[in-house]
């Protein structure tokens, strides 16, 4: 059953990606990309990365893609190219990713594959006994429920201890980006004068 889910979401992601590249209309491209991101989220969840899966939907499909669609609407983009793709471009677009995939497969041959192994949650609970009893409780099922992976707790714990500094930096980055966007999209007086 999980294998089936994997193939389903993988095919969803891949076909969404293919549609993104192939559709002429940017809006269709954007929508197929949303579909692709849903596929991504499924794959993440299949990898026990629930938190990442959720923010993949929230941030990417929710926020970023909306932004894209907004811009597409704002600029009122019609169908992109009426002309067909030039043959050289198509060759490049097929050849380079193709070679890339070939290399990837080649690399697989050099490294041993890893089978999927179920997580032994109670066994790992003892590592958290000292510093995070609540996580340990969830892991071992001591709080009365079945043992489960406290994904968000674990990420939060890492984020606010080990990765605290980058986290702060990220905050500043977002602030700077916000200001930057405002500055960029503001029409400067001279350009607006020449626009009219």
């Amino acid at each position, binding site marked *: 059953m999980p294998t089936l889910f994997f193939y389903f979401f993988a095919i969803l992601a891949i076909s969404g990606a293919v549609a993104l590249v192939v559709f002429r209309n940017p809006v269709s491209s954007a929508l197929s990309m949303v579909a692709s991101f849903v596929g991504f989220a499924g794959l993440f969840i299949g990898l026990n990365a629930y938190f990442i899966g959720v923010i993949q939907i929230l941030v990417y499909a929710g926020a970023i893609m909306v*932004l*894209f669609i907004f811009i597409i609407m704002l600029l009122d983009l019609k169908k992109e190219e009426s002309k067909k793709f030039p043959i050289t471009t198509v060759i490049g677009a097929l050849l380079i990713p193709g070679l890339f995939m070939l290399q990837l497969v080649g690399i697989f041959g050099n490294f041993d594959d890893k089978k999927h192994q179920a997580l032994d949650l109670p066994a*790992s609970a003892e590592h958290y006994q000292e510093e995070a009893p609540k996580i340990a409780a969830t892991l071992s099922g001591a709080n009365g429920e079945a043992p489960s992976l406290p994904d968000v707790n674990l990420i939060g714990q890492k984020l606010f201890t080990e990765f605290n500094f980058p986290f702060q930096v990220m905050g500043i980055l977002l602030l700077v*980006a916000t200001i*930057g966007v405002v500055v960029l999209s503001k029409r400067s007086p001279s350009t607006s004068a020449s626009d009219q």
Partner: protein
Amino acid sequence: MATLHEYLFVSGLLFAIGLAGVIARRNIIVIFMCLEMMLSAANLTLVAFSRFNTAETGLPDYDGQMLVFFIITVAAAEVAVGLAIIVALYRARQTVNVNDLTSLRG
């Protein structure tokens, strides 16, 4: 259950498709979307490694997921700035076709 290689193959394929889009498409917004696709593909790789290389606690190695988290955050900021640039560009040039944007010609 799917193996590591399968995940990596899927992520590589997605990356390749994104790259193909970047190479082939001429609409700068679509190119940008393809770039996001490539980023996500990289994220998938990271998560896959994180899951298949368990840490000493026996749980997934969350360092990888931290990286993904940061990538998503940066990507959000990047998209915001990038789209703002595209809007400014469109205002200046009235086009989003990269064939018309050749001021980098040496």
